[in-house]
């Protein structure tokens, strides 16, 4: 059985796709593009697909990963192009490699996020970022199925910085707009690197932390995009390509 790892996106308005929604859409795309899937054994066979670490509903992503098992070998790039064409624009398959190394999920050590805070002045954001980073611990709470949970949002944060103000947010979430409705409004953009820990700390939790430490309260919901997930380079605070190992392990000439 050939296995292929794919990187996909949730862009623009399709960031509101839940993970379950994506799964259904993806499995239908597999059928439409006649991918020769391997099926699980058992009474109701399922196509072999495994997903890693899905971004929350409402959060855009440039770096989601999944793995599929094929009954017949296929060229990863040709397969990627076919699948991408079969999915709606916004759910895009942007990378594919044949699996040659184990333990992929363990390689997803951290995520890099971009957080767009419309209506928040950069000075205000800078002050909040400084206060958050200065704290040793930032207790936040989140409502879970098992009630309110209190945990530290600070220690998982490997990097948090304010990006220079920009006109284009670069993450494609504005594709549906005829014009930028926020033109003329202040907008702070944060870059955030968070280690994948237990309990998971999400960008939302860091935003709660910013509110807790510096009273930062964005007037409209933050637009969050996952830019990358993969191995964390602790020195530079950057996240590197989790598919690099598989690519490097490919036999020469492919």
């Amino acid at each position, binding site marked *: 059985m050939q296995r292929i790892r794919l990187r996909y996106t949730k862009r623009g308005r*399709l960031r509101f796709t839940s993970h379950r*929604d994506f799964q259904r859409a993806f499995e239908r795309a597999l059928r439409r593009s006649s991918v020769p899937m391997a*099926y699980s054994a058992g009474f109701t066979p399922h196509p072999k697909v495994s997903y890693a670490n899905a971004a929350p509903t409402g959060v855009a992503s440039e770096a989601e990963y999944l793995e599929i098992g094929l009954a017949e070998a296929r060229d990863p790039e040709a397969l990627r192009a076919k699948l991408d064409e079969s999915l709606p*624009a916004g759910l895009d398959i942007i990378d594919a490699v044949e699996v040659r190394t184990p333990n992929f999920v363990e390689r997803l050590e951290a995520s890099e996020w971009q957080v767009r805070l419309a209506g928040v002045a950069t000075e205000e954001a800078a002050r909040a970022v400084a206060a958050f980073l200065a704290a040793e611990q930032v207790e936040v709470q989140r409502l879970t199925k098992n009630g309110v949970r209190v945990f530290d949002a600070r220690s998982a944060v490997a990097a948090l910085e304010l990006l220079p103000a920009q006109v284009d947010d670069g993450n494609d979430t504005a594709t*549906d707009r005829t014009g930028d409705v926020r033109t003329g409004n202040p907008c702070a953009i944060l870059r955030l690197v968070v280690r994948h820990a237990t309990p998971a700390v999400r960008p939302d939790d860091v935003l709660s932390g910013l509110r807790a430490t510096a009273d930062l309260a964005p007037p409209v919901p933050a637009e969050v995009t996952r830019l990358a997930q993969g191995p964390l380079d602790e020195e530079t605070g950057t996240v590197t390509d989790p598919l690099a190992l598989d690519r490097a392990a490919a036999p020469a000439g492919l």
Partner: protein
Amino acid sequence: MTAESVFPQLEALLPHVQKPIQYVGGELNSTVKDWDACDVRWALMYPDAYEVGLPNQGVMILYEVLNEREGVLAERTYSVWPDLEALMREHGVPQFTVDAHRPVRAFDVFGLSFSTELGYTNMLAALDLADIPLEAKDRTVDDPIVLAGGHAAFNPEPIADFIDCAVIGDGEQAVLDITEIIRAWKAEGRPGGRDELLLRLAKTGGVYVPRFYDVEYLADGRIARVVPNAPGVPWRVSKHTVMDLDEWPYPKQPLVPLAETVHERMSVEIFRGCTRGCRFCQAGMITRPVRERSITGIGEMVERGLKATGFEEVGLLSLSSADHTEIGDIAKGLADRYTEDKIGLSLPSTRVDAFNIDLANELTRNGRRSGLTFAPEGGSERIRKVINKMVSEEDLIRTVAAAYGNGWRQVKLYFMVGLPTETDEDVLQIAEMAKNVIQKGREVTGQNDIRCTVSIGGFVPKPHTPFQWAPQLSAEATDARLGKLRDAIRQDRKYGKNIGFRYHDGKPGIVEGLLSRGDRRTGKIIRAVYEDGGRFDGWREHFSYDRWMKGTETGLAGTGVDVEWYTTRERAYEEVLPWDHLDSGLDKDWLWEDWQDALEEVEVEDCRWTPCFDCGVCPQMDTTIQIGPTGKKLLPLTVVNQ
């Protein structure tokens, strides 16, 4: 009115609502056309939540038929849940289409498809959110034409104040004809404004425009007559019928949503209409005559649809799917074709006979055999004669035996309670039937763990059926009868534990009955209920009987009639019914004779297999029933693998 997208405003609200994906559109096979390149624009609504509305075949078909036309566009809109409605009101975001997020008010036509009367309050919510005046008389030339269709539109009188017009019957050709009339009127510079356009529509004889009809009442509250009040407007409005289904192979490109919906399958309508003649069934009466899609037409639709959607299940839809002349070859042909692809086949609405077990076996060749559903509808032989559901208990038991013998382990039986002439004894027979089913199952399989689920719905008399004159059973009497049945099942030591019992109380049925056989005075109730917060009345968690009863008091004040008058009252032959001026093709005298036959427990055969019974539909439409066989088979497809 600007047609600019409201998505930027909406987007800011979406993080705060449940299941935001249902509002963003972008479904596979959806279409966004250039607004300025089109001169007739339709907003199509299924007035329920997206998860129910999206799979609706009617809307999907019309959406595709309209968008295929040059210069015409259609977009879809659905009811928004109360969480988003509150935010939209707070932030001034209007009712929008999910395709390009345009405000509904910017369209030429706002077409609503009503499968059930319980969507009426949702229509008012949508109109209100769209900033379109609730009542037709208050609208201007800048408002869309509000058009109702669907089965409930066969009695549009309860919503006559709110709609500009209604179309009854098949929509495929009708929407195109209406489009041409609107196009011509707009090209001429909208002469005579809104009234002139509506008059042109009314004069075709196929569009009902309530404002051109006056309703006169008798002193006792009954209708005296319904009279056209404008020149050229016909006394009766006729239904639309598409005769050759193979000419309309829609949907060709079914919508595939990202959000989860109630039906996730590729549906193909294998025939329209029904000749079984079940007297309670409005769908069966108003969709006559029977028109079959050919086996090859079905095969092509399935193949194209699966390619376009990637669905894993095919539903062969109709009112009684096993009645298709070539259903055996269709089922076998499709099962053969798609064995490799793990495509499931389903056949809803099947009757009770052994042939259907063979069919069911064919359809589940590769899958599990969990449950089979049958609908005897009535518990006793006598009541089944009244409703003309011709299945004997012997048939049922024989069928059930075959089912268990073929590995099925659960049988689900559908019944109705509150049928005309029904007594407690008729209903208690349901328990006997369920026991006999389990006994037979145990006997055939030699096992004790045989399940039978009894599912019960309350009967609501519907317009254009032989039961349109019948008294509806009151909510209290319905509940009492259901209680007796429940006790009879629970108290049975031998079988009671193996019988599942599902039912609803009688209250929602009374509201449905009020709206089904209501007249123009009922509209005031709908408005009162809407203004009191009524929404999503088809959802148990949103429906409030008390709100409806309160609305009835204010709405009907001063009319001299009440909710019982509309529901539990039996009508006489002479009474002018609110929907008499809407012509479903059925001869009213034939319906009356069939009602009399029902009372005398006389059955009527299926006209597929027996001579004509003069229901009136075929001669009026100058046609006959359109059935096979074609004698063709579904050939295996050559597998093309790139």
